[in-house]
């Protein structure tokens, strides 16, 4: 056993890759929850995104089309959730769980004949100068576009909610649906759009797994990443920038424990695989305790059914 055989540069570079999927899904869910909707179907939308993206990528031989397809697949599935919860006013928790089960089942069905195929690779952009910086260049500037897109989208979400009228309206709808309605905003329409955006993010997160991270199709390949994304949103206190911290801690420990297993550390594999989950939760609980508690930052109308009265 030799700890020094773990290269920190490669470690950081690969933690960014391994966190990207969770980060994307969590950003999407954060937008959905800010609008007052609790969609527990993230896992289902991710796996549907994974298989839709995979099929399109293989059939059209284009990883870019595949990524777009994965986002569309996730959005399509989330439309079912939107219809059921927003127009038929069904319970959001039950509908979300059903969406996950449905998504997992449908994905296995769709992906039946695609197991074992290798998809074409997503080319990495060549960033001149920056990627040539020693150490930092290899750590930060030799990734694929989706990694950068995930970081940009978190910052964009922060900007949306802090600086724009649109973000203010979404927050208002999620904070107090009756008041937002009284001010003349269309609560249902806002939420449906948020759900679709969340769905595309979750789909893209799944597509990233099957097209770039793994890359191949296996049944149940999301392996609970959707649930971790959901937990990240809560523990981040619905603050976008904290999502990055949470996602990177999770990704970091996932990579670290894999490396530790590889060099043969004398600790049970079960315990090692547990660490990313435990460390992430502890870290986020620490962040979210004290000032700015979860209780005060939860969107006030989260999970509530909106019905126009009189």
């Amino acid at each position: 056993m030799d700890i020094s055989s773990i290269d920190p540069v490669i470690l950081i570079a690969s933690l960014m890759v391994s966190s990207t999927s969770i980060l994307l899904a969590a950003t999407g869910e954060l937008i959905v929850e800010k609008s007052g909707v609790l969609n527990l179907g993230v896992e289902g939308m991710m796996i549907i995104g994974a298989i839709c993206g995979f099929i399109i990528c293989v059939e059209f031989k284009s990883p870019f089309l595949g990524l777009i397809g994965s986002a569309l697949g996730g959005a399509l599935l989330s439309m079912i959730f939107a219809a059921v919860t927003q127009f038929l006013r069904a319970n959001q928790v039950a509908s979300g769980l059903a969406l996950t089960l449905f998504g997992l089942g449908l994905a296995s069905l769709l992906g039946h004949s695609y197991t074992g195929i290798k998809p074409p690779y997503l080319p990495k952009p060549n960033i001149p100068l920056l990627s040539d910086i020693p150490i930092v260049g290899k750590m930060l500037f030799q990734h694929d576009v989706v990694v950068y897109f995930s970081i940009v989208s978190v910052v964009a979400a922060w900007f949306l909610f802090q600086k724009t009228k649109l973000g203010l309206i979404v927050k208002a709808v999620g904070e107090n649906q009756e008041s937002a309605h009284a001010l003349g905003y269309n609560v249902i329409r806002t939420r449906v759009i948020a759900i679709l955006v969340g769905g595309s993010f979750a789909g893209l997160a799944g597509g990233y797994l099957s097209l770039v991270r793994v890359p191949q199709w296996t049944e149940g390949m999301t392996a609970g990443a959707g649930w971790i994304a959901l937990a990240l949103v809560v523990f981040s206190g619905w603050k976008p920038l904290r999502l990055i911290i949470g996602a990177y801690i999770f990704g970091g420990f996932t990579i670290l424990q894999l490396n530790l297993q590889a060099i043969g550390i004398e600790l049970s594999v079960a315990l090692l695989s547990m660490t990313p989950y435990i460390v992430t939760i502890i870290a986020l609980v620490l962040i979210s305790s004290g000032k700015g508690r979860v209780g005060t930052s939860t969107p006030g109308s989260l999970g509530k059914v909106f019905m126009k009265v009189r």
Partner: protein
Amino acid sequence: MTSTRPLTGTRQSQAIPLLSLSGITKSFSNIVANSNIKLSLNHGEIHALLGENGAGKSTLVKIIYGLISADSGEMYISNTKYRPKNPKDARKNRIGMVFQHFSLFNAMNVYENIAVGLDDSFSELDLRYRIIDLSKKYGLPLNPNDVVGNLSAGQQQRIEIVRCLLQSPKLLIMDEPTSVLNPMEIEQLFNTLRKLASEGTSILYISHKLNEVKELCNRATVLRGGKVIRTCNIKDYSTAEIAELMVGNSVKATVRTNKIFGETLLKIQNLYQDSEDPYGISIKNLNLEIKSGQILGIGGVSGNGQEELMTALSGELKPKKGKILFNGSLINSLNSEERRSLGIFSAPEERLGHAACPDMTLSDNVLITCSKTANLTKYGFIQKDLTKNLAQNIISKFDVRTKDFSSLASSLSGGNLQKFVVGRELLQNPKLLVINQPTWGVDAAAANFIRQAIINLAEAGTAVIIISQDLDELLEVSDDFTALVSGRISNPRPVGDLGLKDIGEMMSGTLLDD
């Protein structure tokens, strides 16, 4: 309450009214909320819209503000036809509205709350300046960075008003604006409204508090049962005459025949109770005593610890610190069921979900609260007939308008459910009754009935604590009065000894020293 001379708005009135309605009719399934309403508003006029709960005031202003659309009838603004599809249309026509239940967002700051309600685009810095400017000009100081959930009800209302004023409205609709304010805040609000009217803004002022209306308004339109009963110059009528127009018949006052106080029944010493609501107020060092046969009125604006005091007395939550003594024995650790069997009953403010289970029938609602005290179970089995009889008894005695005991609690209107909840507690012959907002949302006749029932209970030796925002009610019913402000309470004093000034001081918390 103030001695300032009311403005004569008619001095500005022009031939063409600002807003005129004719034949406005609106019905919901089988209830006609507004029927053939005619109303006209002059420029710079403060016009009162009066009526009991359910008279159709709210429906009418919601039609004007574009929240709901009328079935028939027409509206004109300065003689051009006006048909708002949504509140945005109303705001485009320079109509603003301040809601009774604020349409604010607790977790957002003042600036964000105002920005989200504006239709035009704006720059953040510019808007911040305008908020500060405007709020100063009209005596409504606001800090754009304060988080709304931490502000008092009066401050929250300022946000609503400033939000309206930023769109320079020609008509400002105020829905029961004083129901959450203390006397000082009311006076400040009236000054603002008078200033606005003198600048030519018309104000439609909805209320059922006649003294206020008489002081502030020029003309009044009285609604009853969805119809306009009369439009009149308010100075030509006495308060009693207007009240009769509103109610339809005269309401007799409550009577108290005896005032015999017994032993001290409840004693609270140095009570501390934390709020469960992140924006709530905690109870700090509260001392209180009440004798049997005594009615203690606790005034103050809701949200100043009322809910927290209620949960401490009912046994829902254990007190954090301090002692609650009932008949000399410590009851801190008893839960609400155990307190009920001692004779301590309580009726919390929130009817649906707190005082009653919305999706259960009335008889089941009786069962879960009174099973021990009224012996509704035997060897663990439900005595169905006894339960039904008790529920039916409450329904008939308190004139609850519903089919029968098998109706769901959620199917009752607010006022009717209120009568049921209060009736349920009153019929248990409590030794101590704690009641929060006993007549909230019920019409004048029923309110009077409930008040008389409370008085009768006290005459029979029950100690009663009434927590209410309705100052007139407290002064009418209570023997002693105190106010709960910021989680603290001043020494109770006999109602007879109190002047308006004393009450104002108690309610604004100036008597509390640290």
